[in-house]
């Protein structure tokens, strides 16, 4: 049996797709553009979500768009972290030369965590519970990348 491979490497399942972010995320992204992280509070269970939600899954109640917004500080707590040299994109994965730590960060005043790069720090210096602060990108576009990542706060620094 011959063992020939036909590989189609480009274009095969490539298609443009638009996501309408919805009114809640629209407000959230607008917030990022002015360096303001916004969460919203479920009026029933009082959990504060980042990113904001229309529906609290636990209570199965709509969180009204016109209120329940919570302006959060740019500080938080490191809840989890990992380091990888494997960069996964929509097209595949590749090895990277640098191991970049990423973390799950819970913004102060919120009840959920978001995943972002941890900047200027090595894995050996990370522990769960560290205080962190947002590092904003120089250019703000109303995009998740407006938050470049989080930096570690030194003892007592706020």
């Amino acid at each position, binding site marked *: 049996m011959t063992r020939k491979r036909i590989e189609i490497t480009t274009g095969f399942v490539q298609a443009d797709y638009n996501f309408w972010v919805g009114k809640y995320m629209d407000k959230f992204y607008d917030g990022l553009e002015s360096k303001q992280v916004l969460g919203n509070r479920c009026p029933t269970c009082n959990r504060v979500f980042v990113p904001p939600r229309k529906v609290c899954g636990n209570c199965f109640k709509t969180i009204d768009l016109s209120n329940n917004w919570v302006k959060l500080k740019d500080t938080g707590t490191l809840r989890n972290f990992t380091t990888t040299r494997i960069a996964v994109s929509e097209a595949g994965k590749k090895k990277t030369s640098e191991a970049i730590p*990423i973390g799950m960060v819970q913004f102060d005043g919120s009840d959920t965590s978001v995943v*972002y790069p941890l900047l200027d720090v090595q894995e050996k210096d990370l522990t769960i519970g560290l205080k962190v602060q947002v590092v904003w990108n120089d250019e703000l576009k109303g995009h998740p990348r407006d938050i470049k990542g989080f930096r570690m706060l030194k003892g007592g620094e706020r």
Partner: protein
Amino acid sequence: MNKVGIVGYYQVPPALDHNMGRYELIFQAVRGALDNVGLKHKDVTSVVSATNDYYDGRTISNCFTVEAGGGYMKDETKVEMDGAFAVHYGMLRALTGHHKLVLVWGGSMSSCYPYSSSTLLSTDPTFERPLELINDMTAGAFQMRAYMNHFNVSAEDIAQVAVKNRRNATSNELALPESQLPAATTEMILKADVLSSPVTELMYSHPCDGAACIILAPEQQALKIRDDPVWITGVGYSQEAYYLGDRDLTQSQSMKNAAQMAYKMAGVKDPKKETDVAEVFEHFAHEEMIFSEALGFCKPGEGASLSTEIGGELPINPSGGAMSGNTPCATGMIRLIEAAKQIHGDASEHQVKDVHRVVASGQIGLCAQNNILFVLERGGRK
């Protein structure tokens, strides 16, 4: 309630890169299951498959599998999840009283698509996906660290699960050859290449090519086909929150919920005492421990204390589990096949003695967002 029996099954040996097309893999699984019990394609009344549009590179992936999968001109549908969920769908069809023989199959060829990218594509398309940080490996790493940190579990304890499963895989003739490590040690597992710290390559159930098939029949019909069908006596499933940051990764609440439902249905009161074997879909070594706790085999955080090797107090994954070959869309179904083999005494080198009841699980989603648990029991005429 009427029971549904597993009357036949077949697993195509997994490979990292099969020299077969999808049609051939699927046909081998389906034909093999029918031939194993001497059934004909015309006996089949309903077909349920588990495939994925992304994995197959074709929208409505069951549109092209209809011939090879036995669904041509039959009652036919698809589940875009793990194969274990398709088995549940097939079971419901058998319970309607209108279907005498239901064929359920699942499979994919991971050699043809970037598996980890498919997991990135499951994240929030505008908030998480552009950052390209969350995928199966980084999510699994968060889960492992959350579990270790919360319960003070060591990486060595977790590596021990990989040692057991990779050793067990050596006695499983249908295990992926590359997954087998007869002389595995915890050191070897811990020193393997890091995928995403603290998860190493050998703690990970590597995606591969393969397919599997299970044939189901309602009680009366099952007993006409064979004297010893394996009965599905309980099933439960549950799903957790979408965002990783909303979830408690130290445990599996969805598996707990699934187990509660399945045990209640099967009348299982003390799962540790009343279960002879567990075959769980562990995407990572640590997930097996998290699941064994959710299944009520031990207290939270004490998964490491359970003796789970073949011949131990409660053997878990005597086949090597998903670590012995993770075929997306078939992995959970293969756990069910392994469970049935254990009950039939057909598990050859990895057979556990005197097996009457087995629990088997499937999962899908980052950090096992969605879990399904089956209770399977030895059948036979009363």
